[in-house]
């Protein structure tokens, strides 16, 4: 009997002498509200322009959902054509959150114009977007995104931390594109030839790029990313913002 008594009751559980204590916790089937739709985006600014580019592939796991699902959006313009917009937003990560965010910012920018009779300034819109994201601090809108207008480029994290930058890559292939950008935009690890030996070498100074150079870098970055990342491909959406307005172009990428 003492044997039985010693065996009895593990905590509050049923203490049958023959029962094996099970360490397995109650299985919980929880719902995960996010998914990763893959893809990558890239933004570069020069002195009088800004480029935002992204691929148009939408994935879930190893499946390709769609080959034409653009992720660079015009904000504050006409609903169908995007005409009159001066701001461009790109969201990469969970596409449903991306669309919801785009629609919210679009509404806010339009309401601002109706209320104040002037378009929202880029810096004001940048701060407003940060506030939108921070409002959802405890149920964040996932993944990195960036946003720009008229030569200014801002990048954000899911909870609204933001920064103005010269260039930024985000999304699935960001780790492949960023070092390329470091080298080709900010001239990292590049030195003035013949300026000295070892530490005396003079680093090459970064200077604003021309529009054609920047567009070439974007194309090269994406063709390379497509080679090495399965979630990137199909088409390149290239959106260029200048003081004259927004130009948009699609170019084919590899579809494998």
């Amino acid at each position, binding site marked *: 009997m003492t044997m039985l008594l010693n065996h009895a009751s593990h905590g509050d559980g049923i203490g*049958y002498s023959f029962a094996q204590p099970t360490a397995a916790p109650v299985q919980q089937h929880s719902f995960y*509200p*996010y998914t990763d739709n893959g893809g990558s985006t890239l933004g570069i600014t020069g002195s009088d322009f800004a480029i935002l580019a992204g691929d148009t592939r939408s994935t879930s796991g190893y499946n390709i959902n769609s080959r034409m699902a653009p992720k660079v959006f015009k904000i504050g313009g006409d609903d169908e054509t995007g005409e009159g917009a001066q701001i461009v937003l790109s969201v990469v990560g969970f596409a449903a959150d991306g669309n919801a965010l785009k629609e919210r910012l679009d509404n806010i920018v339009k309401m601002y114009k109706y209320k104040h009779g002037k378009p929202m300034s880029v810096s004001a819109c940048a701060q407003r977007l940060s506030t939108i994201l921070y409002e959802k601090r405890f149920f964040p809108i996932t993944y990195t995104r960036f946003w720009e207008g008229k030569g200014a480029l801002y990048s954000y994290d899911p909870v609204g931390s933001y920064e103005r930058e010269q260039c930024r890559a985000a999304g699935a292939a960001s780790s492949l594109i960023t070092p390329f950008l470091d080298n080709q935009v900010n001239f990292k690890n590049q030195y003035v030839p013949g300026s000295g030996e070892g530490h005396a070498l003079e680093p090459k100074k970064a200077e604003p790029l021309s529009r054609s150079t920047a567009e070439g870098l974007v194309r090269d970055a994406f063709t390379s990313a497509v080679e090495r990342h399965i979630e990137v491909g199909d088409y390149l959406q290239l959106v260029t913002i200048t003081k004259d307005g927004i130009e948009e172009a699609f170019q084919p990428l590899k579809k494998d």
Partner: protein
Amino acid sequence: MDHFPGTWGRPRNDVYGAYDHSYLHTTGPKTHTSSPAVTGTSVIGVKFNGGVVLATDNLASYGSLARFTDVKRLRTFGENAVVGFGGDVSDMQYIDRLLESMDIRENYSSHGNMLNAKNLHTYLAKVFYKRRSEFNPLWNHVLVAGFDGEGKPFLSSADLLGTTFSGPHLATGFGAHLAVPILRRLFPEERPIEDISKEEAVSALKDCLKVLFYRDARSIDKYSIAVITKDGIDLKEDEQIENQSWAFAERIKGYGAQTK
């Protein structure tokens, strides 16, 4: 001596410990809404010149049990829109009721029901996204077929997370693995939709349903198919997959108990 007859014959508390009542009262949030119960499998759809075809089989499974074999998973909306449902069947019935009441409301308005498939898809995607944001998802993956505002064929998908995408041909569930490669081969991207006839699209979907019946364990050989054109919806709900043959199976090598 135990003076309480009610406890006679029961496991003694001093030997076996107090009875564990914990299973009777569940603590924490409701969890039965966060997993599907009775489910439908793939939905497949193709655009063609002047319309869209959508197809599903007629099975509702309860886990691996083929529970209901006569379930209509294609639901019509208005004159020119159809929704194909995959996933939880009770959530499908809820959404169908939602759409029906919206259709009635629209028809009583002065302008009549003018909502097209594109509007319907936007609405459904927002319902899904709202419910996922409340952590109370509607466990479905749907295809919406019909016409957009410009009268062009429309085919788009929405799922329980609110994710949306569209394309010339789409499939949910197992169909995304088995039907999409067939459809991509038959209708490559460089081939314009205007080039695809209704008959070709319908026969492609029938082939896909056959492959799905061969290889998707949660499928059945009875199916529904809806052809949506400007003239309206031609919905057949009691079709049978025909000309199946496992003759190819004996030529398959590489796995199983074959010795040579």
